[in-house]
C-alpha cells in the first residue's frame, strides 16, 4: 500500500525515475519497456499535433507576410499586407461590427448566465431544469440561426406577431442596419446562455454553504450575499467564462452566415466572415492570413488584460 502511494505520487510529479525507490526490483521490469510503448502510443497524436497545430501555426505567421493565391507558391511581400490592412476600411468596419457583437453578447449573455445560475443554485437542485437550459447549446449554429430567422421574420415570424400586437408595427430584425447585430447577438445568447450558466453553477457548488449560513446569521440579505460573498468567490470561474465567451464570440461565423450573410450592406459583416470571403471568394490567402493573425493578436491582448484585471488565478479568499 505504501509503495503504491509513493509510486502514484512520484508518477504524477514525473521527475524522479522509479529507480530511486525501495521497490525497484518489483517495479523496474514492469516499466522497462514503457518508453518504447509510450512513443508508439503517442505517435498518432504527435503526428496530428505537428501536422495540424504546430506547422499550420508557423505557416500562418509566414503566409501573413506573403502574397499567396493558393495556385501559385507564396511570394514574400514583407509588411505590405499589414500596410494594406491599416488602410482597409472594410477591415476596420468588420472589426467594429465584431466588437459591437462581442460587447452585446458577452456582457448581456454573462449577466443573464450569472443571474440564472445563482437563482437556480439558491432555488432548486433539479438536474432536469439544468439539463433543459443547455438544450440550445447542443444544436448547431446553423439550426439555431435558421430557426430564429423564421421566428424573427418580418411578416410571418412569431416574434413579430407579438411585437405587432404590442407596438403596432413589425421590426425588421435581420434586414435593417440597426437591428442586424443586436438580433444576431440575441441568437448567440440564446444558444450559449445555458452552457455558461452550468459552468457558473458548478462553480457555485464549490462554495461551502456554511459561508451563506454565516451571512444569514449576520442578517445579510440575498442581494447583499450575492454582491459580497458569491461574486468575489466566483471570480476565477467568471473570468474563465468571460475569456471563453469573448474568444468564441470574436470568431462568430455560422449564425451570421445563415441569418444575414453579413448584410444589410456589411452591417453584420464580422471579421471571420470577411476573412472567409477574402480567402475563398477572392483567393487572397496571404491577406486573409494577415487578418487571422490580427484577430489572434487582439485575442491575446484581451485575454492578457482580462487576466490582469480580474486576477483570474485567485479568488478573494486566498
Amino acid at each position, binding site marked *: 500500500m505504501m509503495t503504491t502511494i509513493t509510486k502514484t505520487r512520484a508518477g504524477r510529479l514525473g521527475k524522479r525515475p522509479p529507480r530511486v525507490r525501495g521497490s525497484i526490483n518489483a517495479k523496474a521490469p514492469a516499466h522497462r519497456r514503457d518508453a518504447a510503448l509510450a512513443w508508439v502510443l503517442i505517435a498518432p497524436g504527435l*503526428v496530428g499535433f505537428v501536422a495540424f497545430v504546430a506547422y499550420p501555426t508557423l505557416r500562418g505567421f509566414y503566409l501573413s507576410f506573403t502574397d499567396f493565391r493558393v495556385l501559385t507558391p507564396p511570394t514574400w511581400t514583407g509588411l505590405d499586407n499589414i500596410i494594406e490592412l491599416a488602410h482597409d476600411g472594410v477591415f476596420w468596419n468588420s472589426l467594429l461590427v465584431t466588437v459591437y457583437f462581442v460587447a452585446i453578447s458577452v456582457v448581456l449573455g454573462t449577466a443573464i448566465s450569472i443571474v440564472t445560475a445563482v437563482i437556480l443554485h439558491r432555488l432548486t437542485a433539479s438536474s432536469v431544469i439544468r439539463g433543459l437550459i443547455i438544450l440550445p447549446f447542443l444544436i448547431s449554429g446553423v*439550426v439555431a440561426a435558421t430557426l430564429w430567422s423564421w421566428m424573427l421574420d418580418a411578416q410571418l415570424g412569431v416574434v413579430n406577431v407579438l411585437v405587432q400586437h404590442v407596438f403596432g408595427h413589425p421590426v425588421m430584425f435581420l434586414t435593417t442596419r440597426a437591428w442586424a447585430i443586436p438580433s444576431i447577438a440575441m441568437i448567440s445568447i440564446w444558444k450559449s446562455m445555458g452552457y455558461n450558466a452550468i459552468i457558473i453553477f458548478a462553480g457555485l457548488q464549490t462554495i461551502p454553504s456554511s459561508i451563506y449560513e454565516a451571512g444569514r446569521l449576520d442578517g445579510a440579505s440575498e442581494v447583499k450575499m450575492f454582491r459580497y460573498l458569491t461574486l468575489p468567490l466566483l471570480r476565477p470561474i467568471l473570468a474563465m467564462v468571460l475569456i471563453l465567451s469573448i474568444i468564441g464570440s470574436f470568431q462568430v461565423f455560422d449564425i451570421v452566415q445563415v441569418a444575414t450573410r453579413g448584410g444589410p450592406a456589411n452591417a453584420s459583416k464580422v471579421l471571420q466572415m470577411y476573412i472567409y470571403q477574402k480567402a475563398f471568394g477572392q483567393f487572397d490567402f496571404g491577406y486573409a492570413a494577415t487578418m487571422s493573425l490580427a484577430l489572434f493578436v487582439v485575442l491575446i491582448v484581451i485575454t492578457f488584460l482580462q487576466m490582469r484585471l480580474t486576477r483570474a488565478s485567485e479568488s478573494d479568499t486566498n
Partner: protein
Amino acid sequence: MTTQTVTAARTSRTKERTGTRRFSLGKTIAWCYIGLILLVTLFPFYWMLRTALSNNLALFTDPGSLLPVHFTLGAFARVLGLATQAQAVAEGGSGASLQIGPFLLNSLIYASLSTACTVFFSTIAAYAFARLQWRGRETMFSVFLSALMVPGILTLLPNFVLIKDLGLLNSFGGMVLPTALFSAFNIFFLRQFMLGLSNEIEEAALIDGAGRVRLLFTITVPMTSGPIITLTILNFINAWNDYFWPLLVTSDNSVRPLTLALAVFKQSSPQAQPDWAGLMAATLVAALPMLVIFMIFGKRIVNSIGFTGLK
C-alpha cells in the same frame, strides 16, 4: 448575561421572520424568472415542430397560431424525399426541394468517423501520459497542452492549404484528419481520470504476464469507460454541428454534411415565399440526434460541462 442572550434571541427571531417573508416573495420572483428562462429556451423548439407540421401555403393565414396550421406531415415527406414534385408544390415547397437523406448520411459518417478516431487516439495517448513511466513524459505533455492556446482562426487557413496539397479536398479523410489524430482537450480530460486509477489491478495482471497493451484495453479502458463515453458524446455533438471546417474543405454534395446543406437551403430560399415548413422540418431532423442524445445522456453532459469550469 441572561438579558443579553434573550435580546439576542429575540432579535435573531425577528430577523428570521422578516427574512422568511422577504425570502418567499423573492422566491416567487425567482421561480417566475426561471419559468421565463425555460419558456424562452424551449419555445423555439416547440415552434420548430409546430411549423414543420404546418402546411407552408397556409402559414400566412394564421402566423400566431400556437397549433400547426393545416396539420400535415408533408414538410417531412418533402425533405426526406418521400413526396412527389406535385405534392411538394401543392403544399408550398419549392420545385427544387431539399432532399436531406444523403446529407444526413454524410453527417453520420463524418461525425462517427471523426469521433471514433479522436477518442481512440486520445485514449492511447492519455494512457501513455498517465500510466507509463518514460523520460520526456512531462515535457511532451506540456507541448501537447500548448495546443489549447492556439485558436482555430490561426490554423484554419493553413490547414485548408495542407489538406488541399494532400489532395484530400472533398473527402471524409480531409474533413476528419485535422482533429482525428490529436485533441489536446481529450487527452487532458482522459489523463485526469487515468491518473486516479489504482495500480494494484494493473500490477497483478503484469505479474501474471499480461502485456501493457493488453492491460490498456482490458483493464484501463473499461475502468475509464465513463469519461470515455462522455468524451464520445461531446465529440460527436461537436462534429455533428460543425460548419466552418466542412465548408472550407468540401464543395461536392456527395460528402457535404447536413449543416452545410441546411445553410445552402436557407440561403437559396426564395425571398418572396420561403418554404418555412420544409426548412423547419429539415432543422428538426438535423437537431433530432442531438435531442435524442440529450434525453439519454443529459445528466452526463451537464456534469462534463461543469468539469470544464473546474479543471
